[in-house]
């Protein structure tokens, strides 16, 4: 479905992602992990076709993403950037409705299909009763749910999220992650997101890809990837890992003789 082959990305002269090949499993939750500057955001952007490849390719359905018509691409994948801009004074309902854009071009919306998709999306994310309220007035968690609703209104199979929990309070973080998990299980939504918190990744992801310095260090299910030597190498943190009742790893770390070396 969505995969990369020997993908290298750069901003100007600065290389950010180096020779990464991975495949995103359909219908699963994939998490990109890695320290700041490891190339997670950049990789996500390239999945959405926002960044041309320096070398290698990103393929969606075996066609290079750069060759996709932008509108058709928008019908297959939706992306939620790190710090989205909220248009002044816009209400929840109208913001979610913006997600219908790729489905119509210039003439008025078809009231029934678009409206019902919007309502549906709001119901799935539990923001229906917030529909008439201005987005700016909502809490962080609620806002994030609204953004997800907008992505859902787009009616795509794939949802990309760039650090969706980084600026939220802990409670809201879990709220969002649990929502994504539900959407994945009940609606088959393929989720790819970048996270900072290892334990959250371990808890919610089916597959984890660890990036460091633009390179793919490890990829697999949480149990395979979250190991003491890897975490030590990538994050420069000593950990002790226990396996929880659901079979997923949980780690607590301590920075003994911590020397943070920039991955550049």
């Amino acid at each position, binding site marked *: 479905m969505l995969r990369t082959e020997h993908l290298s990305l750069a*901003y*100007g002269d600065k290389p950010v992602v180096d020779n990464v090949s991975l495949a995103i499993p359909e219908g699963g939750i994939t998490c990109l992990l890695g320290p700041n500057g490891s190339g997670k955001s950049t990789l996500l*952007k390239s999945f*959405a*076709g*926002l960044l041309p490849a320096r070398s290698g390719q990103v393929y969606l359905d075996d066609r290079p993403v750069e060759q996709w018509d*932008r*509108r*058709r*691409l*928008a*019908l297959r*994948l*939706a*992306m*939620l*950037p790190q*710090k*989205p*801009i909220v*248009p*002044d*004074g*816009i*209400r929840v309902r*109208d913001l979610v*409705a*913006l*997600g219908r*854009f*790729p489905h*119509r*071009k*210039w003439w*008025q*919306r078809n009231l029934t299909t678009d409206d019902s998709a919007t309502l549906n999306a709001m119901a799935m994310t539990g923001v229906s009763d917030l529909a008439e309220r*201005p987005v700016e007035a909502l809490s962080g968690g609620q806002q994030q749910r609204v953004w997800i609703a907008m992505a859902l209104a*787009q009616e795509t199979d794939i949802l*990309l999220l760039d650090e969706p929990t980084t600026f939220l309070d802990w409670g809201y973080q879990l709220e969002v992650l649990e929502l994504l998990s539900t959407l994945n299980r009940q609606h088959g939504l393929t989720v790819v997101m970048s996270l900072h918190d290892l334990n959250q990744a371990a808890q919610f992801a089916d597959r984890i890809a660890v990036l460091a310095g633009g390179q793919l260090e490890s990829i697999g299910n949480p149990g395979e990837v979250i190991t003491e030597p890897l975490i030590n190498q990538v994050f420069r943190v000593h950990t002790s890992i226990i396996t929880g009742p659901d079979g997923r790893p949980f780690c607590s770390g301590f920075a003994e003789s911590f020397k943070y070396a920039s991955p550049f």
Partner: protein
Amino acid sequence: MQIPGAGPVARLLLAGGLSLVVVIVAGVQLGAVDLTWSQVWAGLTGNSSQHVQRVVFELRLPRTLAGALIGIHFALSGWLLQLLSRNPLAEAGILGISAGASLVAVAAFIIGDWIVSSANPYNNASFALQYLPLFAMAGGLVTALSVYFLGMRHGHLSPVKMTLTGAVIAGMLHALTTGALAFWGHAHTELVAQWLAGSLYGAEWQHLRALLPWTLIGLAGVGLLVRPLEVMQLDDQHARTLGLGLNRWRAFALLIATLLAASAVGVVGPVGFIGLLIPHISRRLAGANLPAQLVLCVLLGAVLAVLADLLGRTLFTPYEVPVGVVSAVLGVPFFLYLLSRQP
């Protein structure tokens, strides 16, 4: 997307429409010589004296309507530019488009005048009228294009950079215009000064004819832009992932904004602040509803321009204060008030 039809928005639009009608009527009525309603009506229906007929038809009506049109032009242009540059302080004047239009228009005027007056001294006026909007538009377009391309960063348009570049270019063009005028425009300083202040003095039907096609084109363009504009409010990446060809639509929006502003400048001279104020007001009134904002801009822009011209004509008779100055004077305190309420 809301279809403006329900509740407070509809009321607003109605109010706006009514104000427009009132203001236009007042514009025709009042002036150096005040007319009564019956006289105006008689004048329109052709049942009055020659004199009244003339006043109504050849002076007031075209002037008032022209005022309404340029109000629409500048308001819409400002609205587009503010959305485009994500900057509530943007408008055609500030981005240098008006300055570019003015410069080329002034230059054309000076050069053309020099050419023409060598041939036939009586042709000055007609030369100016027909071609000035075109020259102004050329100037405005070139400026807009430069600002657009210079405003790019990493291949995408950066709103902030565009605004700053526009400001710098505007400053340069203004200095050039003043310089050119000072240096070469001796004989015509008064006329050009009048024009540079943004004035409806002497506006006639032919001005309207020159302007109207551009109004229509502009309105059509804006209509096309409404949905893309909604999406453009989001951040760039988001808009792209929704399938919007961002660069293309931004260029188009800039084009329409420039056409609107520059054509108005070509006919009337640069009038600032309408494009700055009206979008603000319509945003406050209509909220996040873009189509409603659009209609309000049209209505309120026309109202403000006609009102400004009216005040300019009537407050200091027999002097005429040009529209540009009145709008600036009206504009600033209001603008300050609006801004003081911003975070």
